[in-house]
């Protein structure tokens, strides 16, 4: 059995839906069996509230929850579990940085730089704080060759730049950005950088030390883990400067009638009873990814992407948005004369699940003068035969619509 078949066998959804061709992995990936097992195990035999229980079940849950921070630190090559905060996803992680770190440090005439490729999750929080504080939101645009260039970023960053936020892989187009070089330009001016790794955390090895970022975020549900889980990595230089958006039980050092103090990051993000079951599921996803041969996984995804992009060349009506990198596994396209929603709706009738619309990237689509695109996104469990089915369904659609 090839690696692809072994990987696929670990995802129970495909036993429940043998006909399903699931190509919406950039929105959410399917859940691996060990994640499901870990979460079920917690419900069945490990459930207890953490941190405050003086009994074995609570202690065990606390240890496993805290161990997961260290596991994720290792996964990212971060210095310690104390650099790893738990959130409900990338969106919340970015909001914590925008509102819990940046907002109080941002003044009129300061600026924040984001790229045109950002998901709304990595655009709106910055736009929002800039508006509140009278700061400028600067946009790093694509260069003539359709890439984000470190040189262009260096021109945008100046002494009033308070943060740069950019994604590792564009969710809408599948462009892999040169994050290490982009970060290096910011480091020269001591500007902190946030990397949105939502699309890369699963199959692209991430080394925050080598990359040099100060903040990095990702979501559990795009890496074979559960929805409602996410990570905020904060480097040592900024760890003590991140304040919580939500306060309450479980994150305090002391509380009195007149004044209270909070625990430092990452524990200050854990107000209330945290999503322990989800965090343990996320930990199981990280275990799976740690054992996964990521080079083989990316090669597999790149092959599928290439098979698709080569295969649709025979259909004149299909226009790819040519700003993808094959190893991302993401490609956006349009079919002449047929709206993207109709493309997705038609493929759905052949049990092929793809996404259509603006992919939460309206500024990007405006920039490219596109109303919407259809998007396929491949993962480790997809197969070559599924690409054949996709292409033949697209051909059928084009013939039908004539």
């Amino acid at each position, binding site marked *: 059995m090839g690696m692809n078949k072994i990987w696929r066998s670990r995802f129970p959804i495909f036993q429940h839906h043998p006909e399903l061709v699931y190509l919406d992995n950039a929105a959410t990936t399917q859940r691996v069996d060990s994640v499901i097992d870990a979460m079920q195990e917690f419900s069945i035999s490990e459930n207890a509230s953490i941190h405050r229980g003086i009994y074995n079940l609570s202690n065990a849950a606390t240890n496993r929850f805290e161990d997961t921070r260290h596991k994720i630190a290792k996964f990212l090559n971060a210095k310690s579990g104390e650099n790893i905060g738990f959130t409900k996803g990338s969106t919340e992680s970015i909001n914590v940085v925008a509102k819990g770190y940046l907002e109080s440090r941002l003044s009129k005439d300061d600026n924040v730089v984001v790229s045109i490729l950002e998901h709304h999750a990595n655009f709106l929080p910055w736009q929002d704080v800039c508006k509140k504080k009278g700061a400028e939101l600067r946009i790093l645009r694509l260069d003539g060759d359709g890439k984000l260039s470190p040189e262009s970023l260096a021109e945008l960053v100046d002494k009033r730049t308070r943060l740069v936020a950019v994604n590792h892989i564009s969710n809408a187009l599948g462009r892999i950005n040169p994050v290490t070089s982009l970060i290096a330009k910011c480091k020269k001016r001591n500007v902190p950088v946030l990397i949105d790794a939502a699309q890369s955390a699963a199959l692209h090895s991430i080394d925050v030390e080598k990359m040099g970022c100060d903040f990095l975020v990702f979501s559990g549900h795009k890496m074979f883990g559960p929805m409602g889980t996410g990570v905020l990595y904060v480097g040592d230089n900024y760890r003590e400067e991140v304040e919580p958006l939500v306060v309450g039980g479980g994150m305090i050092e002391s509380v009195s009638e007149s004044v209270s103090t909070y625990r430092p990051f990452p524990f200050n993000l854990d107000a209330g009873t945290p999503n322990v079951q989800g965090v343990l599921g996320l930990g199981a996803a990280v275990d799976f990814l740690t054992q996964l041969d990521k080079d083989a996984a990316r090669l597999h995804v790149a092959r599928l992407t290439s098979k698709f992009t080569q295969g649709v060349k025979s259909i004149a009506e299909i226009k790819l948005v040519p700003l993808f990198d094959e190893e991302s596994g993401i490609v956006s396209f349009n079919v002449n004369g047929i*709206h993207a929603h109709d493309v997705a709706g038609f493929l759905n009738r052949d049990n092929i699940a793809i996404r259509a619309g603006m992919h939460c990237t309206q500024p990007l689509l405006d920039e490219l003068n596109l109303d919407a695109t259809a998007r396929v996104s491949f993962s480790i469990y997809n197969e070559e035969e599924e690409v054949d089915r996709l292409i033949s369904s697209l051909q059928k659609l084009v013939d039908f*619509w004539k």
Partner: protein
Amino acid sequence: MNREEIERLYKELIIPESKAPYRFEKKDGTSVLAYNPVCGDKFKIFTDGEVHFHGHGCALSKASGSLLMKQLEQRHEGEAKEIIHQFVTAVKSGTAESLNSDSLSTLVALKNYDGREDCILLTWNAMLNYLETK
């Protein structure tokens, strides 16, 4: 309704109607926005003189907008409100008996098969809201 049936209805009505939508033209003057932020379908309905519409969206929302234009032709506001109200009610309840247009009945049939009420009612709801609040 099976897949063959829905494809037949697309072939007979939705595709031709969306490829050549009626009174699909930008106009000056008052306009009403029909926008679905979830999917991005966006049309403007121009209400000065004979009603026109323009914008982008899926075949179903565009075809439905085209049929709305046909229904509103030569109607005064009271009639327009009544026609739209009747159609919105028919789509929501999934029963087409009250409608005297085969095309509009087809939209109700498609809603019953495929859901997508938001696509069908996008321009209709915007126009109704405009007429009721102006």
